[in-house]
C-alpha cells in the first residue's frame, strides 16, 4: 500500500483540493504559454483557443530577431548577478556586525535599518533618480545595480541567522589567534550558506523582474534590461493587435527565472517555508 493510500480520507481530500487549486493557479500560466504559439491575427478575434491549431513560432522569432534582445538578456544577467553578489556581501557583513559586534549606536542603528523595510521603494524613487543622474550614473550598469544593494531584508535575515550560530565556534577560532574577519570568513560564513542561497535567489529574482527602476535609469536601448527592452518593443495597442507577441515576451522573460528555480528549488522552498535553513 502506498503512503498516500494509507492516509485517511481527510488527508486525501486536502490533497485533492490542493491539486485542484494548484491546477487553477497554473491555468493562466498555461494560457499564456498556449497563446504565445498563436498568430496575432487570430488572437485579435478570439482568445479562448488553447490547444487547437493553428500554431506558430513567429512570435518567438520576432523576439529573437529584435536586434538588441541578447544584449538586454546579458544586461539583465549582469545587473542581477552584480546586485545579488553585492547584497550577499553587504548583508552578510552587516548581519554579522549586528549579531556579534558591539559598537556605538548599534541599539538604534539596527531598528533604523529595519525601518527601511517599511519604506516603499516608490516613495524614494524621484530623489534616488535625481541623485543618480547628478552622479552621472544614468545609463550605466552601476546606476542599474547600486540602488538594489540597500537591502534591509537581507541585513535582517543574515543578522537573525548569525545570531543562531553557536558562539562557541567563534570563540574557539579566536582562541586559536584567528582575526575577527578570518573567523567570520572561514568559520561562521560557511555555516550560513542556506541563508545566503535564500537571500541570493530572492535578490536575483527581484532584480531580474524589476521594471520600474530600469525604466527611468536606463533610457538608451543599449542599456535596457530584458523586462524594459521587451516592453519597449510593444506596439501601442499590443493587448489587441499583438497579444501573441506579448505572451511570447512573458514566456521569454520568465524562462531564465524558471531555470534558476529548477536549479535552486530546494532552497527556495525552504525559504518560503520560513526557516531559511535547509
Amino acid at each position, binding site marked *: 500500500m502506498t503512503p498516500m493510500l494509507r492516509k485517511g480520507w481527510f488527508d486525501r481530500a486536502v490533497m485533492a483540493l490542493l491539486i485542484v487549486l494548484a491546477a487553477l493557479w497554473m491555468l493562466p500560466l498555461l494560457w499564456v504559454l498556449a497563446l504565445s504559439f498563436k498568430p496575432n491575427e487570430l488572437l*485579435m478575434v478570439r482568445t479562448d483557443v488553447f490547444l487547437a491549431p493553428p500554431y506558430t513560432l513567429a512570435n518567438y522569432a520576432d523576439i529573437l530577431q529584435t536586434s538588441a534582445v541578447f544584449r538586454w538578456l546579458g544586461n539583465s544577467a549582469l545587473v542581477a548577478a552584480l546586485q545579488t553578489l553585492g547584497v550577499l556581501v553587504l548583508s552578510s557583513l552587516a548581519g554579522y556586525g549586528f549579531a556579534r559586534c558591539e559598537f556605538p549606536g548599534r541599539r538604534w542603528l539596527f531598528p533604523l535599518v529595519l525601518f527601511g523595510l517599511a519604506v516603499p521603494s516608490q516613495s524614494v524613487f524621484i530623489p534616488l533618480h535625481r541623485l543618480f543622474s547628478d552622479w552621472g550614473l*544614468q545609463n550605466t550598469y552601476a546606476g542599474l545595480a547600486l540602488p538594489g544593494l540597500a537591502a534591509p531584508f537581507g541585513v535582517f535575515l543574515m543578522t537573525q541567522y548569525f545570531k543562531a550560530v553557536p558562539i562557541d565556534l567563534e570563540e574557539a577560532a579566536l582562541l586559536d589567534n584567528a582575526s575577527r574577519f578570518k573567523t567570520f570568513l572561514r568559520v561562521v560564513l560557511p555555516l550560513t550558506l542556506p541563508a545566503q542561497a535564500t537571500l541570493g535567489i530572492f535578490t536575483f529574482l527581484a532584480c531580474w523582474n524589476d521594471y520600474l527602476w530600469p525604466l527611468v535609469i536606463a533610457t538608451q536601448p543599449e542599456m535596457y534590461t530584458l523586462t524594459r527592452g521587451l516592453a519597449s518593443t510593444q506596439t501601442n*495597442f499590443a493587448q489587441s493587435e499583438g497579444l501573441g507577441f506579448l505572451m511570447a515576451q512573458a514566456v521569454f522573460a520568465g524562462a531564465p527565472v524558471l531555470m534558476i528555480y529548477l536549479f535552486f528549488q530546494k532552497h527556495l522552498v525552504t525559504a518560503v517555508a520560513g526557516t531559511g535553513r535547509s
Partner: protein
Amino acid sequence: MMKRSLWMAALAGAALLAGCGDRAVTAAGPGAKAKTEITLMRFFGSCDAKFGAVNDASQGVGECGIVTAMVNEFNATNPDGIVVKTQVAEWAPYYDQLTARLVAKDIPTVAVMHESALGDYVRRRLIEPLDAELPALGIDTADFTDHARRGVTLNGQIYALPFDTWAWLWHVNTTLMSQAGLMGADGKPKLPHSPDELLAMARQFKQRTGKPYFAWAIVKETAATNRTFQTLIAQQETPLFSEDGKRIDMHQPQVVNALALMQQLYAEGLVKPNLDYGGANQAFLNGEAGVVVVGTWTIDQFLREARKPGSPLKGGYTVVPFPQLYQRPAVFADGHSWALFKGGAATPEQHAAALKLLQFIWKRSAEWARTGHLPVRRSVADSAAFKALPFRQNLTEITRTGTSMPGNVPTQRAIELLIGEDVSNLMVSNKPIAEVQADVEKQVNKALKKVRR
C-alpha cells in the same frame, strides 16, 4: 599587500561599472567621413524583425512598420551623413521616461509627442519653437490642417511639427445594422442626430438582433470613456474649463446631459458590459455588437478582417466620425507631433540634422496617413491618393471638427485619466451623476492647483 590589491580591484571594478554604459556618440576616426548622429525617441513599438531592413516608407505597414521604414529611408538616402538612432520607449510610461531623461540631461534630439502633452513641456521651456525654422525647410505652415495647427500652437508659436490627427470614430457592422433595419437606401448606416434618436436606434438594434448596439472599452480603461464624454460636451458647445485653463466646471446642465446619456445606454444593456480595450475590439470583430467606438488606428485592422472569408465582419464594415448628437459637429481628437528639445542637439550640425529629419517626415506625410490616422497637411487630405484610401473621404471633416482640451490646460493626460476613471465608474458601478460631477471637479481642480504651485 593583499588588502591593497583588493582595494585596487574594487576601485577598478567601480570605475568600469560607472563607465560601462554606451553614453558617447561615436566619433569618426581620422580620415573617415564625419557622420552626424542624432537620436529620435518615440513609441509605436519596435518591429526590427519585419521592417528593420526596409528602406522605403511606402513598404511599411502599420504604425511601427511605416515609422521604422521612414527613418531607415532617411538614414539610407540623406546625402549629409546624418544617422538617426531610434530610441523606442513603450507607450504607457513614455512621458515618465522622457521626463527622467530630461532630468538626467540625456535629452533626445527629436521626440514624438502627443499634442495634448506638448503644453506641459512648452510651459517648462523645454521645447524649441519652430516658427523661424519651418519656412526655411520649405514647410508651409498654411498647409497645416485646422486641428494640426491648434495642436502644435501655444501662445501664438509653433512648437512641433504635426504628424497626424487621430480621433474618435464609430466603426460600424453594416450586416447587423441591416438586420436591425438601420441601413439607409444609400447603403450607409442610419446615424442618430440626437440623444433620443440614439437611444431609440440602440433599442431597435437590440430588439431585432438580440445584441447590444455598442461595444465600448470600459474596464481597465479610462481613455475611451473620457473621449466619448469630451465629445458629447464639445458637441454642446460647452467649455469645460475656465478661460485661463485653471479650473474645471462639472456643474453644468450639459455635463449632466452627457453623463445621463452614457449611464442610460449602459444601464439598458445597449453597451456590451465589462469589456476592456481588446475585448471591445474582439466583440466587434466577432459580430457581437453593432458599433465599436474606438480611434482611427484600427481602420486597417478592421478592414483586413472584413475582407477575410468566414469573418463575421466579412463585407460588412464601415467607419464614420462620431455622429453629431447635439448642436455642433465635434469629435474628440488629438495628434502626434515631433518636437525638438532644448539641449537635445549638442552641436549646430545636430540641430541642422534634426531639422532635415523633420523636413523628410513632412514630405512623407502621405505615407503615415495609411495607418488610419488623418493627415495634418491640407494638400494630403485633399489629394486624390488619400481620398482613394478606404473610408478616408468620410473622415476628412475631422481635420476641421476635431476638438481637444484647450492648450492652456496643463497636465492634460492626468486630467483625462481622472475624468475617465469616474465616468467609467458611472457606467460600470452606476455611480450617481452628482457624485461623479463632484468627484471629478474636486480631483481635477486639485491636480490643476498642484501644477500652478
